[in-house]
């Protein structure tokens, strides 16, 4: 699974634009690099599969082609992805298996993100002993091996309980919020002493208002990134748990398909059409999310952009700091973009090219 990369240092004024105008520009601030584009397309595809897959599947997941044979059939015109040992149609199972997996990961991401905002922002903004206690709490949760705890908790649970996507999602979220809380706390600490927050405090705005309207908008990219990370974690955890047979959902999911494939040693039997499609689906969703995360990291810190993403041919060398020009020096960004050829790519300009640049 993913190893988190915490790329956020304390915010420098250049990377966190002022709040109010940002709202107007938000649409144009997401750089549609190839990475983001590919990630989004794959993700939308799987979202559609999750919603409509079970409806368009030619057979129900439990449908069996015949009950006498026990040899998996290779892909053919009749069964697009072949069948497994019990003669279930793999194609139908793959189509139907995405819904629970994605739903659980989404629920887990949502709950974990809410928890991490609650704990991380409170710790960062309130400070003092509250910060101390909450930091210790999240550090402890970071050290706990989530998957193992889930195994210990879920093994004795009756199948009826492990069949409830919302419950599973919530339990996974309980082991997943700490990372986001820690990152959000660090960023809140950095934002707390920024001038605009200071001035809001001087004006006499109340704490909840400052947090919701001044601080949260600037945490959005980090929030999105930690949400995506949690969803990747949720998918990995849920698929691993059902692959291990710790939870056995009544309906077939990608994880349970891999579980039966493993138990009937499909791998060593050479029945690739049985285990490759579900594994590929899981991998593709994970990759799509990771690609999106790349894009968000580059929003948080524009300096991280890959040099390959701009076609202007600026070589990044020591002493040459690329700066995003999308912040638009008062000029309306829309008209500016309309004239520029590759409108979606912000132009890096040399900000500090003195010194040794060649």
């Amino acid at each position, binding site marked *: *699974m*993913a*190893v*988190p*990369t*915490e*790329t956020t*240092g304390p915010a420098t004024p250049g990377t966190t634009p002022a709040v109010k105008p940002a709202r107007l520009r938000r649409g144009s601030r997401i750089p549609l690099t190839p990475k983001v584009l590919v990630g989004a397309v794959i993700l939308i595809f799987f979202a559609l599969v999750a919603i409509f897959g079970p409806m368009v599947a030619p057979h129900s997941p439990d449908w069996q082609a015949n009950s006498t044979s026990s040899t998996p059939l290779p892909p053919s015109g009749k069964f697009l992805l072949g069948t497994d040992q019990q003669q279930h149609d793999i194609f139908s199972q793959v189509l139907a298996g995405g819904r629970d997996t994605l739903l659980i990961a989404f629920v887990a991401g949502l709950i974990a993100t809410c928890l991490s905002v609650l704990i991380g922002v409170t710790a960062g903004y309130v400070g003092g002993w509250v910060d101390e206690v909450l930091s*210790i709490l999240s*550090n*402890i949760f*970071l*050290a*706990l*091996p*989530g*998957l*193992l*705890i889930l*195994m*210990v*908790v879920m*093994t*004795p*649970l*009756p199948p009826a309980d492990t069949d409830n996507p919302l419950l599973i999602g919530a339990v996974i979220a309980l082991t997943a919020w700490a*990372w986001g809380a*820690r990152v959000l706390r660090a960023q809140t600490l950095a934002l707390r002493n920024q001038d605009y927050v200071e001035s809001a405090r001087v004006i006499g705005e109340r704490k909840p208002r400052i947090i919701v309207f001044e601080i949260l908008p600037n945490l959005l990219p980090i929030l999105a990134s930690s949400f995506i990370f949690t969803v990747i974690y949720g*998918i*990995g955890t849920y698929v*691993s748990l059902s*692959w*291990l*047979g*710790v939870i056995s959902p009544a309906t077939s999911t990608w994880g349970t398909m*891999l579980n039966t494939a493993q138990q009937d040693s499909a*791998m060593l039997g050479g029945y690739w059409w049985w285990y490759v499609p579900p*594994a590929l689906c*899981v*991998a593709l969703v*994970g*990759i799509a*999310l*990771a*690609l999106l*995360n*790349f894009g968000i*990291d580059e929003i948080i*810190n524009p*300096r*991280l952009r*890959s*040099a*390959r993403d701009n076609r202007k041919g600026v070589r*990044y060398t*020591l002493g040459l*700091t690329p700066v995003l020009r999308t912040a638009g020096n008062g000029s309306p960004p829309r008209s500016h973009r309309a004239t520029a050829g590759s409108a979606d790519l912000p132009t890096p300009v040399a900000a*500090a090219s003195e*010194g*040794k640049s060649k």
Partner: protein
Amino acid sequence: MTTILRRLGFYVLAAFAAVTLNFFLPRMLPGNALQALLAKMQTTTITPQQLQALADQYGLNSKQSTFSQYMTYLGHLFQGDLGHSTSKSVAVTQILSKDLPWTIGLVGSATIVAFVIGTLLGIVVGWRRSGLLDALLPAATFFQAVPYFILASLLLITGGFYWKLFPYANGYDTGRNSNLTQGWNGPFVTSVVEHGVLPAATVALASIAGWIIGMRNMMITTMDEDYVLVAAAKGLPRWKVIAVAARNAILPTISNFALSISLVVTGSIVTEIVFSYPGIGYQVYLAVLDADYPLMQGILLVVTFTVLGANLLADIAYVILDPRARKEA
């Protein structure tokens, strides 16, 4: 000094929290779940007395108060007693002491390999940002975003099954024709290393992307610092300038390691299951299959302590590398 004491205090607290969680986990489950579990155990080789002892241990129909149960539990723990495995009829600690070295060896060697290669690659990618490597970076996320067991299965089926590069099951040769004696002798060590290549490669591959990307991003940020510019302006050779930047960029990646170590350890557990590697990961899988709850709990505790120990090591490394961390005292 105070910083170190505070960190040590945190570890004591975290260890205590883990122990307490371990105690309350079976008690937080819905009441019928444990009954069902015990009923499942009844079918295996277990005497009624042992079953009764287990029911007491988990506070089922016990006359004692929860607090005194907790005290008994702590007392047992301090004597190094983690209970009896129900499926293997031996003390849990005995199983753990046999299996833990395998897991620590696997995670340790994989982490060192991933750290060295990943950091070096990250330095290169961060320094030469226009290079081809930078464009290949998204490919590294494949390993990062895919669940461990899929990556492990991929390596097993390619490197192990089809290409037959390395053995893909067990920790050493256990075949009929093998005449290995465990211990520090040449043939056994060779066999262990051969069997460890694929599992270690899985864990290393999965975590290497994190090191590369973390190091690259920190290099890019650090290279804008004035002292790097000064180093270059003084006319130092290229590699020395890189070393100046890299030394400072490496610090955050080490503190990031603390964030990811529990993911790496749980990942290695899954990897062990795929490769039937004789560590505690494979043991917990067997325990799940046998509904061996005492063993599962013992493993949970030991793994948490391992993660805390690795965190402590990262802390110490950080203090050694960063003079500021020492100065704060």
